[in-house]
């Protein structure tokens, strides 16, 4: 068996460019690795091997013709809620299993143009709703470090595949931590770009004012490469920002000398796993040794973030998911009249957590409750945004844990959704404020589960994430450690 699957995107591009391997070789290595691991992991919902190989052949032909697009021939896995023309896009839901995308998301179109081979649909919590990947209608994905544990969510399949090296890199989406938290749980790099940095066109909406497409990768450099290709204004998304995209590869080469990094205690919530706290504290200390100045910043409103998040996100979700009525697409259940058609389709198609959030969102928008919930949550949102503004007046980036715990056992929090929601405390403030965040591996617990360090940058300040993340990564070897699944080294 070839060892091509072990490569990062940067390394694979170098091999493809030098002619040391072909895109078909890379896809074949990936398919073999998936076969060796996915029985245990269930990271993939599907992978059309013939289509992936056909795309790889086209990429190889392009290269033979002198093309040198930045991701030419690189296989990229896609979280199952991002539209790729001709591929399924079930969003992890039973309701959308018969659906095939008639169009490419803008981010996907840009990857195609850059030569990427779009292969595989990655497992996820239904419509992005969940933090453990246990809410997938296809059954959960498992953590490659310990398959009795969750991989995190909602981009759990993407994180598990990258960590187990059955994917070189994957697209995810992050509404309240859905990229960063599974990256932390699985020991890979997770990037949530700023709101408006990557077009949301083609990303099935969970909460429109919070959703962003991002990547799960083996290195910070790979995250920078992916963003470079996908970022930038899109006329099809009114909320995408028309700003120049900086050179991320150049930005991450700068060392940390003179940087001010904020380290707010507000993220160290009650009940945080001491192993997680130790690993994060050690990582912050490491950054100081690398030349950064660590300063204390106050974030008084972080404690309200989870409550505000679950009001805003579910309110938006309750309308975003209203379109799934079985009339135009999806797993339609006849009911006699149009009202019953929608009702039966939704009753049969949506899982428990999705129904819970739709009901919650419908409630908070109801006449008489709007001011008390939705409006108040929006006020909390602006207070949190202000907290960050004041913090970024004093520092260049903020460091924090990604989650209060490492990956927990399957089923541990399934019966107590509120407990599950509280695990999002470190990540949701970033979405509420529209900022960017990066999760990088920073250690392990005493039970050998990975821990992530969250680097938070100001809106449109991804260069800072890559700079801090890359410099820290180069100085440590956490990212090189791989789980022992599927007979890996």
């Amino acid at each position: 068996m070839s060892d091509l699957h072990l490569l990062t995107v940067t390394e694979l591009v170098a091999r493809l460019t030098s002619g040391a391997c072909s895109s078909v070789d890379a896809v074949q290595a990936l398919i073999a690795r998936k076969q060796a691991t996915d029985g245990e992991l269930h990271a993939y919902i599907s992978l059309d091997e013939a289509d992936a190989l056909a795309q790889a052949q086209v990429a190889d032909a392009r290269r033979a013709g002198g093309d040198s697009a930045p991701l030419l021939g690189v296989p990229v896995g896609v979280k199952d809620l991002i539209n790729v023309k001709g591929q399924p896009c079930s969003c992890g839901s039973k309701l959308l299993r018969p659906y095939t995308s008639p169009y490419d998301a803008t981010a996907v179109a840009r990857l195609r143009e850059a030569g990427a081979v779009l292969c595989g649909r990655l497992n996820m919590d239904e419509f992005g709703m969940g933090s453990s990947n246990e809410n997938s209608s296809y059954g959960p994905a498992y953590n490659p470090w310990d398959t009795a544990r969750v991989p995190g969510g909602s981009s759990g399949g993407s994180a598990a595949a990258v960590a187990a090296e059955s994917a070189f890199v994957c697209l995810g989406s992050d509404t309240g931590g859905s990229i960063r938290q599974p990256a932390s749980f699985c020991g890979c790099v997770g990037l949530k770009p700023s709101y408006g940095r990557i077009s949301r066109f083609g990303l099935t909406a969970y909460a429109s004012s919070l959703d962003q497409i991002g990547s799960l990768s083996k290195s910070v450099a790979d995250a920078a490469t992916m963003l470079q290709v996908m970022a930038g204004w899109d006329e099809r998304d009114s909320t995408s920002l028309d700003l120049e995209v900086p050179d991320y590869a150049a930005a991450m080469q700068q060392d940390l000398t003179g940087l001010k990094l904020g380290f707010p205690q507000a993220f160290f919530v009650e009940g945080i796993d001491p192993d997680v706290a130790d690993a994060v504290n050690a990582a912050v200390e490491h950054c100081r040794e690398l030349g950064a100045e660590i300063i204390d910043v106050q974030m008084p409103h972080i404690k309200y973030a989870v409550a505000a998040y679950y009001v805003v996100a579910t309110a938006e979700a309750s309308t975003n998911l209203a379109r799934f009525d079985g009339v135009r697409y999806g797993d339609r259940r006849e009911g006699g009249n149009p009202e019953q058609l929608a009702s039966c389709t939704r009753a049969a198609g949506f899982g428990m957590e999705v129904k819970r959030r739709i009901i919650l969102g419908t409630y908070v928008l109801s006449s008489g409750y709007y001011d008390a919930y939705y409006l108040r949550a929006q006020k909390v949102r602006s207070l949190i945004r202000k907290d960050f503004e004041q913090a970024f007046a004093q520092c260049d980036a903020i460091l924090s844990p990604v989650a209060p715990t490492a990956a927990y056992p399957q089923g541990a929090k399934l019966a107590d959704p509120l407990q599950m929601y509280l695990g999002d405390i470190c990540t949701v403030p970033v979405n509420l404020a529209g900022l960017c965040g990066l999760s990088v591996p920073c250690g392990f617990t005493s039970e050998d589960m990975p821990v992530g360090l969250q680097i938070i940058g100001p809106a449109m300040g991804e260069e800072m994430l890559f700079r801090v993340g890359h410099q820290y990564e180069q100085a440590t070897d956490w990212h090189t450690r791989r789980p022992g699944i599927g007979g890996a080294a």
Partner: protein
Amino acid sequence: MKQDLVPTVGLETHVQLNTQSKIWCACSTAFGCPPNTNVCPVCLGYPGALPVLNEEAIRKTVISGLLLECEINLRSKHDRKSYFYPDMPKNYQITQFDQPLCLGGGVDIEVDGVKKRIRLNRIHLEEDVGKNTHYDHGSGVDYNRAGTPLMEIVTEPDIASPEEAFAYLVALKQILSYGDVSGCNLEQGNMRCDVNSSVAPRGSDTLGVKTEIKNMNTFKGVRDALAHEIKRQIREVKGGGVIRQETRRWDDLAGQTASMRAKEYAHDYRYFPDPDLMPIVLTTEQVDAIRASLPELPAARRARYVSDLGLPEYDAGVLVADKAVADFFEATVDISGDAKTCSNFIMGELMRLLNEREVELVDTKLTPESLAGLVMLSNAKKVNNQGAKAIFEKIFDQGGDPEAIAQVEDLVVEAEDVIAPLIEQVIQEHSGPVADFKSGKAAALQFLVGQVMRLSRGKANPQAVSEELARKLGGK
């Protein structure tokens, strides 16, 4: 119980804007295409698709607002209005809830010589929905219409009778046609109306319970439905009954309204700002630029026809009623230089033929050039009245050059030097009638004119002959 009950009426009129493309996507708004051919992931509400606001829709709404004397909101936004219905792809409609594009304004009407202003509450911009069709076995939805930009124009409860409602709609249509913001074609559903009405004792401070008649698509229907509904409410109240707040449907054939659903079960629409769209921010400069490009409104045009062209008030009113007709009139006057004769042809022959054939001006072959040609032919007395009417019908139906038609159809009247000897001959041969006319029997002149026409084989101009005879015989 004796009481004088008076109605209060408010209208919500949905007007489709005549933009080329839909409000959130590039799909065509063309009417009458095969079902579901003008659709895309955006207007079908596919997962991941996002709306992007069509700026032309904003511009046309602002034009409407300015023409209707509204205040333009420099900052407005779009909201989601949630309810499940198969013709609505996203199961929420993107509309404007608390910050519409236009506020206030009004429309002036006149009923039985009484002038009145119907105040507007607001105009907001939203999306149209698809169309349901029910068959014997099952239903179909056509989403071609879904996403067509729609203005909702809401009046204050200022309307006091079915006639005022009718006059308001006619005036509104006229203004919107002048603004070229909508096709205003009722058959194609360009204008649809929700009618709110209630009755209360005259002089009462509070309004009665209102009912709503939904989705009326003819002005006559609004008038008839309202007349019936007001009668029904008065009868109900006088009989000691109560009016339920409800939605009613107008049955055109039966000539009555019937209950559709009671308002108690009305939806909670759960409005909230649409996170997919940025607020609409306009500058005073942008609004002023649109204001500077506004077309002349019918009232101003009518005044100008009276003062500058010397037309009677009545003629001016008829000419401006339809913008296409008024534009055509002006173009014809520009070529022919004779406003009164142009006006006569338009008010007479044109209106008659349009009515008879049940067509619009645009459907005919008539051009300003051809009508101006006819005006000049007629002024030069080269054709008589009968001939002019025949030529008009030809250029109306088939187009062509009036002069050439006159030649081919043998309608050119004879020149004066051919007719003069004929007049002399008739005076010589008919001394009796000549004497009668001279002694004051005016009717005798008609006989003499007829004789000249006979001798000319119909090719004399009867008016000219009549004048010449009268002059020669010294009659009055």
